[in-house]
């Protein structure tokens, strides 16, 4: 009887296409995801169904208000008083006539705090306002 010779060759799975695919997925997610900005001022922005995510975010002056009514401005979240805010808005408005004031207020902030900001801005001539809200 003639027996068939046992095949001694090792069965190997080719890993390279899988690695290629995983690398492509990794690159996609790295590019698609954004760098998470860690807020220095922890606030909970309210959600709104009709909030519109803007295409153009230039020409904005961002004011962050926490629950206590403390004001923080600029990229470095510098704490300011209402009078300092007024001065800074006036200066920004001189540089850019089409300045838009963006108020990032905590949902639990009392309206009177936002009112102070709006009044201060209106007094120096900044009329275009935005409230930040998350898309619901």
């Amino acid at each position: 009887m003639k027996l068939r010779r046992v095949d001694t060759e090792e069965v190997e799975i080719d890993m390279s296409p899988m690695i290629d695919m995983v690398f492509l997925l990794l690159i996609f997610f790295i590019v698609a995801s954004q760098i998470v900005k860690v807020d220095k001022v922890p606030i909970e922005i309210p959600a709104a169904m009709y909030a519109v995510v803007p295409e153009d975010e230039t020409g904005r002056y961002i004011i962050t208000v926490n629950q206590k009514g403390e004001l923080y401005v600029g990229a470095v979240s510098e704490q300011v008083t209402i009078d300092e805010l007024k001065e800074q808005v006036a200066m920004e408005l001189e540089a850019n006539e089409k300045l838009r004031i963006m108020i990032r207020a905590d949902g639990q902030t009392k309206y009177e705090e936002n009112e102070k900001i709006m009044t201060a801005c209106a007094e120096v001539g900044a009329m275009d306002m935005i409230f930040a809200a998350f898309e619901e």
Partner: protein
Amino acid sequence: MNLSKKNGYGDSKVELQIAPLIDVVFLLLIYFMVTAALIKKEGDISFILPAPSDPEVQIDIPVEAVIEIGADSIVVLEGMRFSAKDRDLSDLTNHILGLKQIAVSQQSKFFVNLLPDGDALHVRVVDVMDACAAAKVDTLTFSKSL
């Protein structure tokens, strides 16, 4: 002279271990997949503050919807009260739409005037602004707090 044979180096295969690399790549992939889904983008609800205007220029009397927002989050429009539990304020939206229709029939301008209490919460103000946005209100103003 065959040195490699003599020292036994020629027989061993040099192999690159790719298993740890795949592990790391998988971990990175999972991290980016999870974080990408978690990022919420902030949106806008914009409004223009009322500017002082020459009273002689203003001829049309606009239709104004005055919405009061209480410290207890109760919203009032022309005697209609909307409870604090009513977050989507769909009835308020319908009522604003009705007033907007009246303004269209009278060929007048229409705007919404918000009168929040000083202690009213910002989240409730945003709810009302959202209801106005649902009714496609393009002119929204704020009055001095109650």
